[in-house]
């Protein structure tokens, strides 16, 4: 699993940090989501999926590991 965040779409709700705080954080300056662990450990995958579902702006995407990030 590889996580990417579209910071253009992100509205800074913080839902990802609330749901999977070990994987996501927010930038100090503008509240946009950042990914701390782009390839999260197995035990966080459930909460990462929940974060994807809860994101109000559909800004988080999951892909297969090793997928190049454009």
């Amino acid at each position, binding site marked *: 699993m590889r996580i990417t965040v579209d910071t253009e779409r992100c*509205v*800074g*709700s*913080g*839902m990802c*940090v*609330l749901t999977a*705080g070990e994987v996501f*954080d*927010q*930038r*100090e*300056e*503008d*509240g*946009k989501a950042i990914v701390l662990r782009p390839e999260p450990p197995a035990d966080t995958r459930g909460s990462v999926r*929940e974060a994807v*579902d*809860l994101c*109000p*702006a*559909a800004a988080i995407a999951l892909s297969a590991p090793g997928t190049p990030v454009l």
Partner: protein
Amino acid sequence: MGEFPHTVTTMPTARRSGCPFDPPAELVDARRHSPISPYTFPGGKPGWLITGFDLVRSVLADSRFSSRKELMLHPTIDYGDMQAPPAPPGEFLLMDEPQHSRYRKPLMGKFTVRRMRLLTERVEQITADHLDAMEEAGPSADLVTAFAKPIPAIMICELLGVPYQDRGSFQEQVDSFMNGETSDEDLLAAYTATQDYLAELVAAKRANPTDDVLSDLTDSDLTDEELRGIALILLAAGLDTTANMLALGTFALLRNPEQLAALRTDPALADRAVEELLRYLSVAKTFMRTALEDVEVGGRTIEAGSRVILSYNTANRDPERFADPHVLDLRRQDGGHLAFGHGIHQCLGQQLARVEMKVAFPALLDRFPTLRLAVPPEEVALRPETADVYGVKSLPVTWDA
């Protein structure tokens, strides 16, 4: 989809007697028939009412639905052909992109999870102060004035930088345009007074910036008028919603003693309890959108220009989304409610609200182990459905001194 869809012709204005926490029965009934119902606005204009969780969520995430104020209709009042003016500068909740982002973006960094959690200690202190005052004045109190209103009011005023001595009168003004019962004349007076106050506040922050959100924003390219609009929206949202969650939430816990006991004995339940109270009570009940083009929703075509009423409180009681939706279950596992909305307008201050509730509910229960209603539950005065935010007007409580 039946051939004769269930139609809702007037927005229900009352909750069933004895069920202060449940949405009006007509809305729950509409949801039982279909997650989307034709709705006739006063004056006869056709529109839609959405009560199903998935459909409300999808409309909120869909940029083909507009939030612009001038495209809205009042759900219960016939204004004839009169059209609402566009939202004043800064009032970004009633705008679409790119105007919305112009205002939300500079605020997003101020309301992050991390920043709001840093306020925990301050919320604890304010909460303890108010519990002390309650205890001293007790053994009875109106929980609304003694506890539910001051905690979020002090927090949002401190964040924005409203001087301490102005808080009382400012809170009264905001209250009078939020309670759903103020006459038009008094409403206008309160609105004008608030606008004047905020204009002065913005000018003061520009002249002498202090350590607060509003002062920080004077550093951006936003005009004074825009800052005034932003301040109004943040204060109105920050004061009224959390205050009503705290008071109505306490009422709900007192009416569900086994749930109250669970939270009291297991403070680790607080996070989940707050989410469940948000879902169960959904005090910000209803929002609206207008279709900018023809959009298919739930098998029906919503035509360009049609207004859609989104019933958050009914969606949060959707049996297709939540098991036993009308049960308050603080241990509930199926999270993901719509109490803060969804899409680009999802509540900016939600993490602040969470911190406030997470601190305040357990602290209250801890301080007063014998807390109970001081009047029969049916005598608790509720806000009418005409108020934008649902709640109680007062909550008389008592305890063993």
